[in-house]
């Protein structure tokens, strides 16, 4: 697996984790707030693990890969870039679409010849299994809602788009790296 492919994966997880975390404190009910925030945190944890592997190959650090690239250098799918708050139906549509495709990606990575990648994929898959369960139960609950169906149809084509960057990604990047950029050279 090339460093570029690792970056696609890590960028997807980081940006989706960030977007999902925008629901913290404002989810439709408290229990869901806890659950969805926890999923967001897991995604960022997965991003960190993949960035670390990529960083070793590229001779840099996970933090630099996550925060010091320009927005147009990110390789994440267009799907994860969108700011969907406060549309819960669209958020669940994205969650469901992402988890479905991510499941296939992780399954393939578990079979990787590189034992480090296969091992990490297996570890991540155990957490993703819970995310899939969560996505599936929401899908079953919302699948007959016209708003949800429309959101799934609208978002599905964005999954494979990686070369177009939305203005929303640049805005997110500003927010995401604001503190890091505030003191140049700080090692925190």
């Amino acid at each position: 697996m090339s460093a570029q492919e690792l970056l696609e994966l890590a960028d997807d997880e980081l940006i989706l984790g960030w977007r999902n975390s925008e629901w913290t404190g404002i989810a439709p009910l408290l229990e869901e707030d806890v659950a969805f925030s926890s999923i967001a945190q897991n995604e960022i944890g997965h991003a960190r693990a993949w960035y670390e592997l990529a960083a070793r190959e590229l001779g840099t650090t996970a933090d630099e890969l996550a925060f010091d690239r320009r927005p147009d250098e990110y390789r994440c799918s267009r799907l994860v870039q969108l700011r969907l708050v406060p549309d819960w139906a669209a958020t669940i549509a994205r969650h469901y679409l992402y988890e479905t495709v991510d499941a296939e990606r992780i399954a393939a990575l578990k079979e990787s010849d590189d034992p480090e990648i296969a091992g990490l994929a297996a570890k991540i898959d155990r957490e993703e299994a819970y995310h899939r369960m969560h996505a599936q139960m929401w899908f079953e609950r919302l699948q007959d809602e016209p708003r949800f169906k429309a959101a799934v149809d609208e978002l599905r084509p964005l999954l494979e788009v990686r070369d177009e960057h939305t203005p929303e990604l640049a805005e997110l990047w500003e927010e995401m790296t604001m503190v890091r950029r505030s003191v140049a050279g700080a090692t925190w």
Partner: protein
Amino acid sequence: MIYEVFRQERKGQAFAHAGSVEAPNEEFAEAYSREQYGRRGESTALWVVPREAVHEIDDFADELQKNYHRVDGYPLKEKLGLARERAGTARAS
């Protein structure tokens, strides 16, 4: 709908009430319970029970003050003192 959650800290231990979650059905209740009471390795197992399934009993009639049925209604100290006196083994006070 409210579900009551009981958790077991270690295998073999009794389940203790952990709290409750609000969820639209059992599946959501299970997911939310995992999240709130099992994610940090603090539980080996959970029981998730709809609140209606829990029968609360809180009326314990004790009209005749049969306090000898209760541990705190049967003080031993006095009786022990008397018995010691009778046996001639009373402690010097």
